[in-house]
């Protein structure tokens, strides 16, 4: 068994181990999602040779040199290339992506522009409440709230490693020392973990309950309503009371709050709830549960390189922010490079449709919608298994990935491919 850092989700579990033997994989500690990630190593559908689209539209295997030449040519000749994906790649790879974007004067964008953009817009990043490590939540998280987030199904080990069950410095009894609140519009698996199960009813339910909760915490003499968003007064008042009693409240939120028509109204209220709870005696923290593993790394690396978190247009000097999604939909790009992420599967339909029509270069370990449509497919080593690097956990913590075996014959790491690609582009210019 080899110790490893799992790249299956943004938790990057580092207490797990795996053993790979030709067609057999065994693991200890990996959740279903993580084990599934490692299964790519033994998968029979693994991409192990570069593919080039022939004139008849069919993919034919080609040499790495051929594929790299073709990819470099496409990027070099492009008037406006898009370089998209990145949030499953280590920071070193993202850095190379930014350098390529600069040398071809293209647009660099990561999946973060969809996942992270809303957070930035509403100031949910960078504040004192957002500077929190998961280890801190484990050690102090007396009251933990999951709002529109369902970690039991998205980040399987968040509850057992950090937020619900483990003992910590100020959490002597583990689960018994914590109060868990889950707010959602349906009864998710995470709801089963909660002391306070708030399954809301109605379209504006989040707004109603957030406002009422803030009102309650600020102190009011008015008699409480019989129910708010389908939640009876008694449940709602006892939650307010317990929040007031807690020394430390950790709030996690997810897509249930982020991608809804009411988001514009709910996020400022969520921030207000957190600032109301943050007093001299109590710390309240706020973290988003982001799906793609290295989204935070993609944002950090891009910020360091361009002072922008994502969506940067290198055609202007200094590079300026742009709306890559809008540019995709309006057909501004003539070539796209997709790295790690299945861009066509991830992007909203209008963007995916527009992107599908472009000559695509895809870096991927496994076949996907994007590789199916790509003009050039470059097979890549599996991050964390066959390729190393630095990544950032969902709370910003930096972790180092150590590869423990070499990729299949003829397969290079993303870092090697992009280094060679950059060289080919700069050599000829």
């Amino acid at each position: 068994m080899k110790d490893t850092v799992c790249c299956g989700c943004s938790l990057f579990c580092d207490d797990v181990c795996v053993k790979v033997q030709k067609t057999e994989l065994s693991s200890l500690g990996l959740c279903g999602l993580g084990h599934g990630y490692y299964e790519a190593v033994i998968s029979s559908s693994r991409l192990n040779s570069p593919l080039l689209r022939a004139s008849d539209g069919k993919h034919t295997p080609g040499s790495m040199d051929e594929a790299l030449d073709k990819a470099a040519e496409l990027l070099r000749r492009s008037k406006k290339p898009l370089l998209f994906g990145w949030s499953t790649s280590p920071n070193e790879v993202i850095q190379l992506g930014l350098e390529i974007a600069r040398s071809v004067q293209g647009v660099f964008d990561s999946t973060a522009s969809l996942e992270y953009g809303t957070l930035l817009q509403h100031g949910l990043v960078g504040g004192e409440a957002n500077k929190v490590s998961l280890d801190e939540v484990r050690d102090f998280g007396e009251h933990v709230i999951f709002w529109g987030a369902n970690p039991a199904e998205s980040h399987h080990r968040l509850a057992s490693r950090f937020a619900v069950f483990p003992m910590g410095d100020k959490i002597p009894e583990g689960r018994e020392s914590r109060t868990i609140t889950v707010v959602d519009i349906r009864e998710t698996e995470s709801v089963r973990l909660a002391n306070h199960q708030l399954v809301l009813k109605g379209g504006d339910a989040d707004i109603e309950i957030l406002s009422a909760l803030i009102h309650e915490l600020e102190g009011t003499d008015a008699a409480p309503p019989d129910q708010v968003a389908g939640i009876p007064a008694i449940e709602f008042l006892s939650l307010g009371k317990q929040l007031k009693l807690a020394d430390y409240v950790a709030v996690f939120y997810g897509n249930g709050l982020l991608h809804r028509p009411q988001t514009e109204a709910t996020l400022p209220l969520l921030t207000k709830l957190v600032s109301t709870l943050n007093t001299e005696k109590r710390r309240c923290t706020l973290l988003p549960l982001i799906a793609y593993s290295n989204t935070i790394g993609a944002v950090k690396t891009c910020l360091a390189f361009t002072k922008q978190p994502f969506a940067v247009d290198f055609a202007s000097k200094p590079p300026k922010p742009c709306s890559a999604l809008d540019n995709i939909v309006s057909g501004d790009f003539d070539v796209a490079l997709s790295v790690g992420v299945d861009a066509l599967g991830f992007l909203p339909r209008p963007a995916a449709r527009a992107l599908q029509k472009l000559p695509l270069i895809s870096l991927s370990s496994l076949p996907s919608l994007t590789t199916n449509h790509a003009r050039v497919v470059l097979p890549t080593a599996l991050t964390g298994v066959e390729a190393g690097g630095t990544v950032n956990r969902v709370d910003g913590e930096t972790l180092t990935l150590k590869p423990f075996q070499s990729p299949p014959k003829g397969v290079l790491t993303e870092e090697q491919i992009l280094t060679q690609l950059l060289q080919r582009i700069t050599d000829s210019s």
Partner: protein
Amino acid sequence: MAKLNPMQIYKLLPRTNCKKCGMTCMAFATRLVLREVSLEECTPLTEPGYKEQLATLQELIAPLLTAEETGIKLDEEICSGCGNCVVVCPVDAKSEPDTAYGKAARTSETVFRVENGIALIINLSKCRRFPPDRVNCRVCEQGCSAGAIEIW
């Protein structure tokens, strides 16, 4: 499960009354059925000549070691491998203290261990529900958000 008769057990023991286990063979047989002693405590059984008897004995007492005894059922089809059971289990906290702080179980000493993305009960006999303790502990069932653990 048909009740085990001490005589069935007695007939397969060495019947030498060596008292290495601290009692006579008949007493051992009775206590084995009551699950107060384990088969391993009869050391002469491991000596050559008892191989077949040992195998039969193990077969006879095997039902005592199944889920029926603790009433725990873990549905591997539903399990997500989150490891909540590993972390909440008080026995695991003793066997591998790091698990109580959220770490994955890595030794073979715990009751639960997540292998290949699925939680397995690897030491059922250590479970507090198991005789002789028979504690009505249900923390794993309560902590399982997937609903894969059932205790009846």
